[in-house]
Each structure stands twice: as structure tokens, then as C-alpha cells.
């Protein structure tokens, strides 16, 4: 970890672990090659998508079966070794960053699609299955898996469950939590547990939903049963250009307020539009201050009905250019610019830092104006790409980590954006999770009673705090140190 901002976050386990006994027991459980001890071998795993936070683990394990996962958890439990689950490592909150004295459990080899039931529109998959691989596998049945993070080519279903990931189609079809029927998990004691079921609502407390978004702190997901959706007969994509972000923001609020819920409704600001256009050249209007990308889906009749209303609403709110995709290829191109927005911004700056606050839609104009003021104050550029329909912002802070102090400035700016989101009634994270990164903002969003309740809940699953320690939920001590840091 390079920055000092997270300094109060010390690993809770400072007891002495008998490393050699632990490792040799691990090697007995797993085949040769599935236990990685060398620095070079573990280097690819030292961080997730938030690369400024790095840490090598004690040891990395790559199980191939659920039995092996169980055995590894039992062993970690027995020896008191911290354990960090990891999928593809595309997370953006340092959630999968290894623990210096711990085991990194890489789940990508559990990558089987166990069963597809095209009649009930469900699939049972192992956690290492890539998000896009699932959608591709069910495409022959005319089905798809709705939550589609921009990282879908790489990220895993296990990681999606752990983060409650969303995507550009979540406005209409929901996040991971809304598309999941059942999860099989392994507890820190190595016990298998099934949450949810084949039906839609099982009796009792909703443990399945609790598991979603729990960031690897409560258990390891070893199987998930997800809902699939039939492909709509017609999909229509259009983009609309605006002179101000406020006008585009108002158009979004008006459209939703009118009762039209598109399948996707995304917004990009000028800097993001230019970066994306330079990168993928899909014909975005680079003179626009804001661009809305809207997708409608349904039967022909439904889409035609909605298209008229959407165009009318967009124009009323000052769209000076509306482009309606003529065919699937053009629709894909229009989406490509949005989906490639992060890497596109990566090309115009040595480093960028992606935020993930969510705000009420009515606050979009105000918050974007405040962000641009903050951007000027810190002297760092900010590109905005976001799930406008949901009010989920992704301000991308551009900085250069090789310049002394710029990372810290970027973190401070990011922290200010997150607290701004909380101030207007929103949250510090809409879909990327807290991980290690947003620990400092947790005491800002939650009071002591809520945080203590989270900790007791964590203890009900993992009393020794072995699962992904130091992430997601700050300890009491952490909060006290954080607050004295803020006020001191």
C-alpha cells in the first residue's frame, strides 16, 4: 500500500502462525502447482483493479474442487491463518488485495457451468465462471445473464456475488442480488451451506441477500444458481447530446419520472466522451458536454411506443443531436464507447482512480457541479461516466502516481466526492464495494450502532475474523483512530 491515508488499518491477526506446518498441510490437500509460494509466482495476485494498493500474500492456493476449498478453509481455521478469497481480481476497492500473513484463495479454476435449465431460465455455475462466458454459453437458448459489469469479459460470478455487481442493464433488470436464486457457500469452519433455493422466496430470514455484497467476509461462494432472461425480440439503442451536464441530468430525471424505465440509461461528460471517441472511434459528438446512451427493449410494439416518448423527452430537455442506431452493429458500436470508457480514460492519464458514489437522481446536476469545483481545487481532472438512470456516479480522477503527493491528492479528492454523495442522501458505494479503499468513509455513512451491528453479524459467521480481515467493516478501534485523524 503506497498511501498513508489508510494507516489505521492494521491486520487484526498478529499472533504467531506456524507457517511451515501450515504450508506443508496445504501442499497435502492440493496438487503440485496449486500452491504458490514464490514472490514471482504470486506477483500477478498482489492487487485487484485498484492497483495502488498492493500486498503479497504468505501463500496462494488455487483449488480445483469444492472439497479442496473446504479443506483449505478448515486448515486456515485450524491454524488461525487469515484468508482472502479472490475471483478474477477486477474489483475496484482492493477487496481481493492479499493479506501479508494470510492465504490468498484464487477461485478461477472452479470454472464449470454446472447446469443450464433453459426451461426455467436458470443456470448453476461455479464461482470462477466469467460473467460473459455465462451469457455466451446460454445464448444458443436465446437467454442471457442480465447483470453485465463493464468488466464482464474477465470478472467472475463469485466476485459479482461478493460485490453485488451491477452493469449498464441494471436499471431495468437489477443487480446481482435481484438475479440470484441460490448460493452454496463454505463457512470458515469448512461447512457447506446452501442459502436460498430453487423457488423464488424461501421461508425465513433472507440469508441469500445477506451473502450478496458481503465481500468475502462471511464465507466463500462455491456455487451460484442465477436467473437468466430471454433476449428481447427488439433492442433499440440511441444517444442524445447535450450542451450541459445539468440538462442531460434533468432529461434523465424527467424520463424516469414520466414512468419510462429503459433497459439502460448511461451518461458521459465531455472529457469521457472525447477520451472514448479517441479510443474506439464510434462517432460520438465530441463537442457535446454530455451524452446520454439509452437502450430500450421489448417487443416491436413496446419499443416503438417507448422510442417516441424517449425522443420527445430528450428533445424537450435540450438534446441538440439524437442518433438512433439503425442496426445491431451500430447499437454495439454506441455501447462500445461507454463500455470502454475506463480504459479510454486510462489512455489520457498515467493513472486514474474510479469512484462509485450513488445519489438521488435529482441531485445529479448539483453534485457534478460540486465535483468540478473540487477538481479545480485539487488541480486534478475528473471524467464522469455513470449509470445515470440509477444515480450511480463513476467520477474518474486523473492523476500521476509517479508525481510525489498526487496519489494522496487523488485520494483526498475521492474522499470528498464520497462524503458529498452521503451529504446529498446517497452512499459511498453503489456497486464496487468498500474493500480496503472506502474504509475511511464507512464511519461517515454509518453511526456507531450500525457499525457495531455489522461487526456482531460478522462475528456470527467468523468469530476469529479470518475471512478477508481488515476490509469492508471497520473495527471500533479503526473508527476511533479515523475520527481523531479527521479532527486532530
Amino acid at each position, binding site marked *: 500500500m503506497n498511501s498513508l491515508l489508510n494507516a489505521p488499518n492494521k491486520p487484526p491477526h498478529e499472533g504467531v502462525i506456524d507457517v511451515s506446518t501450515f504450508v506443508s498441510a496445504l501442499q497435502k490437500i492440493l496438487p503440485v502447482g496449486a500452491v504458490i509460494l514464490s514472490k514471482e509466482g504470486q506477483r500477478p495476485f498482489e492487487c485487484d483493479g485498484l492497483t495502488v494498493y498492493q500486498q503479497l500474500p504468505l501463500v496462494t492456493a488455487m483449488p480445483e474442487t469444492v472439497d479442496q476449498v473446504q479443506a483449505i478453509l478448515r486448515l486456515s481455521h485450524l491454524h488461525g491463518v487469515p484468508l482472502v478469497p479472490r475471483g478474477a481480481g477486477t474489483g475496484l476497492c482492493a477487496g481481493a488485495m492479499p493479506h501479508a500473513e494470510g492465504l490468498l484463495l484464487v477461485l478461477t479454476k472452479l470454472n464449470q457451468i454446472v447446469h443450464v435449465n*433453459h426451461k*426455467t431460465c436458470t443456470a448453476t455455475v461455479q464461482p470462477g465462471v466469467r460473467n460473459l462466458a455465462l451469457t455466451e454459453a446460454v445464448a444458443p437458448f*436465446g437467454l442471457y445473464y442480465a447483470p453485465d459489469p463493464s468488466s464482464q469479459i474477465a470478472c467472475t460470478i463469485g466476485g459479482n456475488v461478493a460485490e*453485488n455487481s451491477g452493469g449498464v442493464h441494471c436499471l431495468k433488470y437489477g*443487480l446481482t*442480488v*435481484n438475479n440470484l436464486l441460490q448460493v452454496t457457500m463454505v463457512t470458515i469452519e469448512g461447512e457447506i*451451506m446452501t442459502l436460498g433455493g*430453487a423457488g*423464488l*422466496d*424461501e*421461508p*425465513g*430470514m*433472507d*440469508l441469500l*441477500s*445477506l451473502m450478496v*455484497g458481503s465481500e468475502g*467476509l462471511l464465507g466463500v461462494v462455491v456455487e451460484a444458481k442465477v436467473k437468466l*432472461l*430471454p*433476449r*428481447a*425480440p427488439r433492442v433499440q439503442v440511441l444517444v442524445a447530446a447535450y450542451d450541459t451536464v445539468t440538462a442531460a441530468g434533468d432529461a434523465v*430525471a*424527467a424520463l424516469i*419520472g414520466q*414512468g419510462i*424505465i429503459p433497459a439502460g440509461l448511461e451518461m458521459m461528460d465531455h472529457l469521457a466522451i472525447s477520451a472514448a471517441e479517441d479510443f474506439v472511434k464510434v462517432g460520438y459528438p465530441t463537442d457535446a458536454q454530455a451524452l446520454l446512451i439509452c437502450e430500450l427493449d*421489448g*417487443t*416491436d*410494439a413496446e419499443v*416503438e*411506443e*417507448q422510442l417516441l416518448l424517449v425522443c420527445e423527452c430528450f428533445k424537450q430537455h435540450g438534446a441538440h443531436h439524437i442518433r438512433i442506431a439503425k442496426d445491431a452493429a451500430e447499437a454495439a458500436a454506441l455501447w462500445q464507447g461507454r463500455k470502454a470508457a475506463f480504459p479510454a480514460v486510462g489512455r489520457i492519464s498515467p493513472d486514474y482512480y474510479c469512484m462509485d458514489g*450513488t*445519489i*438521488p437522481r*435529482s441531485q445529479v446536476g448539483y453534485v457534478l457541479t460540486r465535483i468540478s469545483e473540487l477538481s479545480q481545487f485539487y488541480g486534478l481532472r475528473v471524467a464522469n461516466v455513470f*449509470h445515470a438512470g440509477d*444515480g450511480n456516479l463513476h467520477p474518474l480522477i486523473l492523476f500521476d502516481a509517479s508525481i510525489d503527493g498526487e496519489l494522496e491528492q487523488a485520494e483526498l479528492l475521492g474522499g470528498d466526492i464520497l462524503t458529498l454523495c452521503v451529504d446529498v*442522501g*446517497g452512499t459511498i458505494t*453503489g*456497486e464496487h464495494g*468498500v474493500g480496503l479503499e472506502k474504509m475511511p468513509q*464507512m464511519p461517515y*455513512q454509518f*453511526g456507531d*450502532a*450500525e457499525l457495531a451491528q455489522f461487526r*456482531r*453479524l*460478522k*462475528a*456470527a459467521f467468523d468469530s476469529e475474523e479470518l475471512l478477508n480481515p481488515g476490509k469492508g*467493516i471497520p473495527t471500533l478501534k479503526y473508527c476511533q483512530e479515523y475520527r481523531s485523524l479527521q479532527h486532530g
Partner: protein
Amino acid sequence: MGDLTVQLEQQIQHAYATKTPLKIRGGNTKASLGRETSGEAMDMADHSGVISYSATELVVRARAGTKISLLNDLLAEQHQRLPFEPPSFAGEATIGGTVAANQTGASRPWFGGVKDSLLGLGLINGYGEVMQFGGQVMKNVAGFDVTRLQCGAMGSLGLITDVSIKVLPEFKAGHTLTFDMTIEAALEAMLKWANLSLPITGMSHFKGLLYVRLQGGAGGVASASTFLGGEKLASKAAEIFWQAIREGSFLQPRHDQTLWRWSGASDTLANTVPNTSLINWAGAERWVLTEALDTPLEGLVQYQGGDRLAEVYGAISAPQQALQQRIKHAFDPHGILNAGRLYAWM
């Protein structure tokens, strides 16, 4: 009507100090659900009222004792609706009880359950601490999802004080088609049609008829209707039918009857759940009304009637039982909140 948070907080703090069991009650419409329990009454009906409603944000926030019927009326003024179509039980059901008992109507497979519309809630735990989880925004993954955990918990983890719910626009058009079909044929038809991306918002089978409800834009509904065929039900009759489905009024058990609920995959064969009286949710929910009092049906929940001191929700695995007990303890260490309502051991 008003904000009774302070009184409620004090009542729970007192109960915590004296280890007094409390029995939470909203509109008292769900007394027949869950296990029979005793305890000092904790009435929520007066802790009511809408805290905020923004039609353009599609969010309503109301105190737990607010009646579903009141919310429905309020939303209808703005041409909006509760997406999960909860029962209002003669206008008495409250939103808090609805969340705790996880009550969802016919549109469940298409518009989701309570958890899919629930954005946040206020909770007083068994220590008497007032807390807020989630919020009023559409996406929020900070901290554990204590909000959705409450769905179906029957008040055993805390007293829900207020809820924030995502609402949706009313449908512009809709009608219901009926088809003369056996259970077997209906199950097959429902499976097939659910696969077709049609504007379906309800599929139920009752007394030899399959009912298919279409709702959406006028054009979409009309074309789907032509495609499906069947007999068009008069709009008044359709309204009465779906209301009865939502309110559970077709299958009210007499005192010597038991109503069982089956939940599972929609392609499960008819004979797996013998003597099904009603099918809902395109086959994913089935109901069986039996005369006998005490014969538990394997894999079915003893929904209403019969011995209410039995484990009406059935058994769960030993490790999960232990986990749920630890979770209960994390929220309610003295076990004062609706103790035994869900399971005898909780």
C-alpha cells in the same frame, strides 16, 4: 398516527433490561402466519405515516405502521404502484409487517419480491438501539445487507421502524386471458410463455383455468394478447380474480384445515406436489389445502392452520440452524423480539 420511535426505543430498552419477551404487531393481519408465540404486545399501527415520497425519484419512505392500502392510494394519485403487489388484507396490512413476512403478489416472477423493491429501513435491535440501513438511493452496497435480511425474518432480528421502497409507474394498459387447461397443460404453457419476453405480469392456475395477465404499454399488450389467444376476461372479473390471488382469499383454511405452501422450480412436475389447489408465480408457488390437521407434507411449509406450535417452516440443517441462532444473538441477545415466531429454537 405519527412518529413513536422514542417510545418504541424505550419499550425495547426496558424489555432488554428486564428480559421481557415482546410480540410485535402491525395491523394484526398476519397472526395466522408463523408460529404461535406469547409476549408483551408491541403495537406498531400508530407508528405510521409517509415520511417522504418523491414521484420523480420513484421512492417512498414510510413508517412501519403505514397501511398498504394508504400507500396504494397515495401512489395511484401519481400513477405509480408498489412493484411487489402486496396483499392489503381488508386494508389493514402494514408495510412493516409486509416486509417482515415477505408478502408478494402475483407479479413476483417478473417484478420481484419485497427484497427487490426494498432500498433501506430503520431497525431497533434487541438492545434497543435505533439504526438505519440502506437508504433511498437505487444502489447501495456499503456494509452488510441488513435491510434485505429482514425480509421473511418475521421480526425476529429487530423492530422495523420505517422502510424505503422503490416504486414503479402504473401500467398503461392490461388485460387477462384465460385458457381451459389441466394442471399439467398449464404448467407446460406457463414454462413456454415465460421464455418469450412477453409483457406478462401474472400466471396462475385455479379450478381448471389458466389465467394470464398482460400489463404494459397498449401496443405491447395488444400484440401479446393476439399472439397468446385464449379467452379475454372482462376487466371487472379480472380485477376480482387477481385481488383474490393477492389477498389469498381463494384458499382460506377452515378451523379443521391446513393450507400448505410449496416453493420450487417452475418445471417441477404436477405430481411432485399432489393435490395442488392453486398454482401461482408461473408454477414456482403451489398451494395445497388439506382437511387433516397434523400430517406434515414433506418439503411444504405449513402456511396457515394446523398446529401452530409445530415447526411450521420445517427443519433446516444443523450448521445453518446454529448460524441463524448466532445471527439472532447478534441482533437480539436476550431473545426478546418475536421469540419462537420463526422457529421454536429462535
